[in-house]
C-alpha cells in the first residue's frame, strides 16, 4: 500500500527523475548540481571580487583617445569600447549591476509576491478573491508597458530599475506562492499544527513557509535570466541602468547599435548573460529534481 508515499512525494516533488543506468549516476548527481553551482559562485566571485583583485581599469571614464581597441591590447584583454573603457572591467562591473538587479528583483518579488500569494491562499474567501483579481490585472497588463511607465515616472537609476522590474515579477511569484501554499495548507500537518496550539503566524512561518520556499526559490532561479534580459530591454527603450554605468543589458543594447561594426561588444556581455542564465536555470531545475528525488 504505497498510497501514503505517493501523496507526500507528490507534494515535495513536482517532477520525477528518470532512472539512469550505470554508476555514472552518482557522479552525475553531484556534477549536475555542482557544476552550475560552481559556475554561479565563480560568476559572483568574478563580478564582485574580480574588479578589486585584478588590476583592471575603471569601467567608466575611459580615455577617448584609447577607444575601440581590439581584444588583446596590452592592459585591455578584451579591448576597449567606443568610449575607451576597458571591456573586461565593464563586463565584471556590469555583472555586478546585472546580478544585483536580478537578485534584488527576485528578492523583492519573492518577498512581496510570496507574502501576497501566501496570505491570499491562507486567508482564502473574499480576501483571496480580491487579491487574485488584483493580480489578474497586473498579469493581463503588458509587463513591458508597466515597466516602461514606472521607469518613466521614476527616472532611470539602479534602484528604480529594480523597482520597475519587480512590478512584473511580483504577480508571477504570487501565483506560484498561492498555489503551493494552497497545496501545503491542505496537508494534514498544517491542521495538526493548529491542533497542536500553534498560533497562525507560527504555522505560516514554520510550517507553510519552509515548504513553499523551495518551490519559490526554484521559480526565482528561473526568473534570474528573465530579469537580466529584461533589464537589457529597458535599456533598449532608453530606461534601465543609466549610462555610463555598465550592466550586461545596457552593454548589449549599446553594442547592438553598431553590431555589425563591433560584434564583440555584443558578444562578451551576451556570453556572460548566457552563462549566468544557463547556470541559474540548471541549478534551479536540478536542485528541484534533487529535492524531489528524496
Amino acid at each position, binding site marked *: 500500500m504505497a498510497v501514503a508515499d505517493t501523496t507526500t512525494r507528490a507534494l515535495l516533488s513536482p517532477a520525477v527523475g528518470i532512472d539512469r543506468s550505470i554508476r555514472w549516476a552518482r557522479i552525475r548527481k553531484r556534477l549536475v548540481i555542482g557544476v552550475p553551482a560552481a559556475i554561479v559562485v565563480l560568476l559572483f566571485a568574478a563580478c564582485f571580487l574580480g574588479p578589486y583583485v585584478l588590476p583592471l581599469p575603471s569601467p567608466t571614464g575611459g580615455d577617448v583617445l584609447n577607444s575601440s581597441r581590439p581584444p588583446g591590447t596590452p592592459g585591455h584583454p578584451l579591448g576597449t569600447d567606443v568610449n575607451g573603457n576597458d571591456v573586461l572591467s565593464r563586463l565584471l562591473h556590469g555583472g555586478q549591476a546585472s546580478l544585483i538587479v536580478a537578485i534584488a528583483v527576485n528578492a523583492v518579488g519573492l518577498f512581496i509576491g510570496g507574502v501576497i500569494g501566501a496570505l491570499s491562499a491562507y486567508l482564502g474567501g473574499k480576501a483571496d478573491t480580491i487579491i487574485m483579481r488584483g493580480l489578474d490585472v497586473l498579469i493581463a497588463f503588458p509587463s*513591458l*508597458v508597466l515597466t516602461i511607465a514606472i521607469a518613466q515616472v521614476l527616472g532611470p537609476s539602479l534602484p528604480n530599475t529594480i523597482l520597475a522590474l519587480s512590478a512584473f515579477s511580483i504577480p508571477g511569484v504570487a501565483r506560484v506562492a498561492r498555489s503551493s501554499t494552497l497545496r501545503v495548507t491542505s496537508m494534514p500537518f498544517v491542521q495538526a499544527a493548529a491542533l497542536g496550539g500553534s498560533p497562525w503566524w507560527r504555522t505560516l512561518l514554520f510550517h507553510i513557509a519552509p515548504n513553499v520556499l523551495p518551490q519559490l526559490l526554484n521559480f526565482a532561479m528561473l526568473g534570474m535570466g528573465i530579469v537580466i534580459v529584461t533589464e537589457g530591454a529597458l535599456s533598449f527603450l532608453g530606461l534601465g541602468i543609466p549610462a555610463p554605468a555598465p550592466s550586461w543589458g545596457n552593454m548589449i543594447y549599446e553594442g*547592438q547599435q553598431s553590431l555589425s561594426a563591433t560584434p564583440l561588444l555584443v558578444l562578451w556581455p551576451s556570453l556572460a548573460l*548566457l552563462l549566468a*542564465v544557463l547556470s541559474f536555470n540548471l541549478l534551479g531545475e536540478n536542485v528541484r529534481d534533487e529535492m524531489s528525488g528524496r
Partner: protein
Amino acid sequence: MLRLIARRVLVAIPLLLAISVLVFVLLEAMPGDPARNQAGMDATEEEVEAVRRSMGLDRPAYERYFSWLFGALTGDLGRSSVSGLPVAQLLAERSPVTFELVFLAFVISLGIALPVAMLAARKPGGVFDRIVMVGAMTLLAVPNYVLALLLVIVFAVTLRMLPSIGFTPIEMGLWLNLQSVILPTLAMAIPLGCFYARFLRGDLVEQMNSADYVDTARAKGLGPWRILWQHAFRNSSFGLLTIVGLNVGALVGGTVIIEQIFAMPGLGQLMLQGVGARDTAVVQICVFIFAAVAVFANLFVDVMYAVLDPRIRYGGR
C-alpha cells in the same frame, strides 16, 4: 459551454475597466507636459495654455477619464494629439500587423515546441533530448532583440533571402506578406518555442514515467508514439495551455521592441511613439488592446480547457 463563456466575459469586464484606470493613472503620473510637447519647442506660454485647453487638459483627471470611457463605449476613441488622426483609424491600420505577428509567433512557437518536445520525450536522456534541451536553454537566454539582429544578419544581409525590415500588407500578396513577417515572427517565436518545448518535454516525461494511464496504454500494446500523442500529450496540453495563456501578455508586450527593430507599423510602435509624446488617447487604447488580448487569450484558454477536458465539459459525478 455558452454559459461558461458568458460568465468569463462578465468577469473580464471589471478586469478591463481596472486596467483602463491603471493605464490612465500611469499616464497621468508620467512626467512631461503633453500640451507643451504638442505646442512645440518655441511656443509661448499662452500658446501652450491654448493648446492645453484645446486638448481638454484643463479639466480634472477623473472627468477626462470618464469622457474617454464614454467616448470609447460609444465608438469614439478620440484623436491622436500628435497626428490629429482619429485613433480608430490608426488602430485599423496598425492592429492587423501586431495581431499577425502575435498570431504567427504563437503558431510557430507551438509548431516548434510540439514536435521537438515529443521527439525529446520519446527518449528522455537520449542524445536528441540532450542536444535539444541544451539548445533550447541557450536560445532562451538570448534576448529577442539580439536574436532579431542576428536573424537579420544571417537571412537578410548575408543570404538575402528575406527582407530585413518593413511590413507588406496581405493585400499585396500572401507570399510577400509572409516574407516580410517571417523574421520578426521568428525572433519572437524562437525563445517562446524553446520555453514551451522545455515545459512540454518535462511534463511529457513526467506523464510517461509516472502516469498510471500511460501504463494502461502500454499494457494494451500500443506503440510509443501513439501513447505519447494520445495519452501523455493530451494530458500535458492543459499545463501547456495555462502557460500559453499566461504568456500572451508578455508576448504582445514584446512586439514593442520587435516592431521597432523591424520597422513594422504595428500597435507596439504606435504605443511607444505615443508614450514618448504623451499621446494619451493613443497610449490608452494601445495598452488597453494589449491587456484585452491577454484577458481574452486567457478566456480562450479557459474555454479550451472545457473543450479539451471532459471533466470540465461534462461536470463532476
